[in-house]
């Protein structure tokens, strides 16, 4: 990409629409859409989100969706959402414990795709340097199968837009606690998309993939980076392996734009995963992503949400911090009382009152932490050992922009 013509330095956009605040898979499902209005209103009450920064999702060109998903799968989702009987629903991952069949779920899932593709388009067109679609981040959805609460893969569709319509090289960075298997599968044979996923090891956590020897195939050899970490991984160890692997991967690949999947389930309160990051640790990760975008993609950054199953205490605060990092702002130490007042009685638990958590996180087992850190370090070095020779080949190659 040449330069971002009209984008004012530091300009940011926040994709939002009332229907994105509605649950895609039913009100009782653990994937809670209420995280979005909680995040947005926290920012609004704190005066950190300007109405002019909010954009509504545009309708995407349907052809983009079919580049990522098989037509029969898209049709099956639509039929199921309409209540039509579907004999082979199960083979599409529909009507399962994770992905129950819910009326109008196809419309909701498409709206999420619209939102993330809009964030990507805003950045690609140079209207903003950074844009967020916190409704997006459904990284488990596969070509012809719903998986892990995800119907349509908004991330993969946005990457298709950025690569096929704008000719950009995309670095996808996934900091969700789960492996970004759907996005990896969509692009592991492509040389113009780098996928990086740091996650709790598939030995212990869904979806059971994302090991360090998954490094891409064919034209995409070397464009797939996985760092599986142990349950119990804390801030220090996570940041250590992040610093070991992510900057070198971006330096080797030289992206035009970075797409961040910012699932907040790596936090220690998350009930579905076993990583032990704190809010301060997540902020440190976000700061690094901003610096890496400035260094490697001229600041261009598209951000989505993702997992995050502690929806009241953790996710709104984490994503509000992320937005502040994108916009160069700061959450006040004490969160606005008017935000708490606005939600009183509407949610089943108390909202947090401070921007950070109390320093004392309870008793720690230093020997266990050291052991986990040692193993994570060894894994990260294995990831690098497999990839570094391939990356060195890219640098030697005369055609810098096309790793073979």
């Amino acid at each position, binding site marked *: 990409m040449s330069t971002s013509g009209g984008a004012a330095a530091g300009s940011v956009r926040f994709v939002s629409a009332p229907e994105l605040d509605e649950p895609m898979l039913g009100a009782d499902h653990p994937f809670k859409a209420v995280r979005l209005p909680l995040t947005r209103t926290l920012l609004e009450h704190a005066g950190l989100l300007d109405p002019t920064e909010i954009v509504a999702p545009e309708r995407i060109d349907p052809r983009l969706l079919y580049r990522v998903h098989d037509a029969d799968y898209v049709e099956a989702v639509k039929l199921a959402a309409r209540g039509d009987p579907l004999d082979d629903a199960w083979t599409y991952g529909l009507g*399962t414990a994770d992905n129950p069949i819910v009326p109008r779920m196809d419309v909701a899932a498409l709206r999420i795709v619209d939102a993330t593709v809009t964030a990507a388009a805003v950045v690609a067109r140079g209207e903003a340097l950074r844009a967020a679609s916190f409704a997006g981040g459904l990284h488990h959805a596969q070509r012809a199968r719903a998986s892990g609460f995800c119907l349509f893969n908004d991330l993969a569709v946005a990457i298709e837009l950025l690569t096929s319509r704008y000719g950009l090289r995309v670095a996808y960075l996934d900091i969700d606690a789960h492996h970004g298997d759907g996005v990896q599968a969509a692009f592991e044979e492509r040389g113009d998309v780098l996928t990086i996923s740091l996650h709790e090891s598939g030995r212990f956590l869904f979806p059971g993939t994302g090991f360090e020897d998954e490094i891409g195939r064919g034209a995409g050899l070397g464009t797939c980076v996985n760092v599986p970490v142990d349950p119990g991984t804390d801030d220090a160890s996570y940041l250590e392996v992040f610093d070991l692997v992510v900057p070198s991967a971006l330096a080797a690949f030289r992206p035009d734009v970075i797409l961040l999947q910012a699932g907040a389930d790596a936090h220690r309160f998350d*009930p579905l995963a076993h990583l032990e990051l704190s809010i301060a640790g997540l902020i440190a990760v976000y700061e690094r992503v901003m610096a890496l975008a400035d260094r490697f993609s001229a600041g261009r950054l598209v951000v989505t949400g993702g997992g995050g199953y502690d929806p009241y205490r953790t996710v709104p605060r984490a994503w509000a911090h992320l937005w502040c990092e994108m916009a160069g702002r700061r959450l006040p130490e004490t969160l606005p009382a008017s935000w708490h007042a606005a939600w009183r009685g509407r949610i089943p638990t108390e909202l947090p009152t401070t921007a950070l958590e109390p320093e004392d996180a309870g008793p720690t087992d230093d020997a266990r932490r050291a052991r986990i850190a040692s193993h994570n370090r060894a894994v990260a070095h294995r990831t690098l050992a497999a990839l570094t020779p391939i990356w060195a080949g890219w640098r030697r190659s005369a055609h810098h922009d096309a790793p073979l």
Partner: protein
Amino acid sequence: MTSNVAAIGPDMPIRDVTTLMELRRFRHFPIVEDGSGGARVVGMVSDRDLRAVGSPHPSARPDVSVFDPVRLIMSTPVITAHPDDAIEDAARRLRRHRVGALPVIEDDRLVGIVSAVDLIEALAGQRAGHQPSSLLEVEVPNRPGGLLGVLGALARLDLNVASVNTTRSDADAVAFAIRLDTIDAAGVARALRDDGFTVLWPVTVDTAGVPT
């Protein structure tokens, strides 16, 4: 199992077998003799057997040199496997006979060779299915119907079991690693614990009382 096995006759000089082994990057060769009933595996030779030749190692025969035929150092009788043998059985045979690989023989015909590394890889591969899945580890009483109760509860939760492996077993209890087609292993563990089952993984993330 590796199917593409080099056929080595018992009269090939040891030096040539060594060269071939380095070329093919195998560590074990079956020695095959052509007879009236067709080709027959008469012995096995490993990289260790070859290296011992001419060395001061106590197991090395002082009268054998690298120019002698390989039949002088091959190990006999041959411990074999059949293509339909269970992986665990092959593993047990490797350990009992202290060998590193077994020729795989079907109806007197050599069809491949299986090494300890092959077996480890096969057993490791059983753990994760092809579909995305979560790990659940449960402990059940070591008596009839122990596992059935868990499987029934999983079926009632509308969950598909992608694979089951025993992780530990004693007189009283057996632990199973079960891979399920859900991201919400925590919810499944909660439901099973509520029904009185012993769930070893995932552990409970109880942060209800933690200050925010």
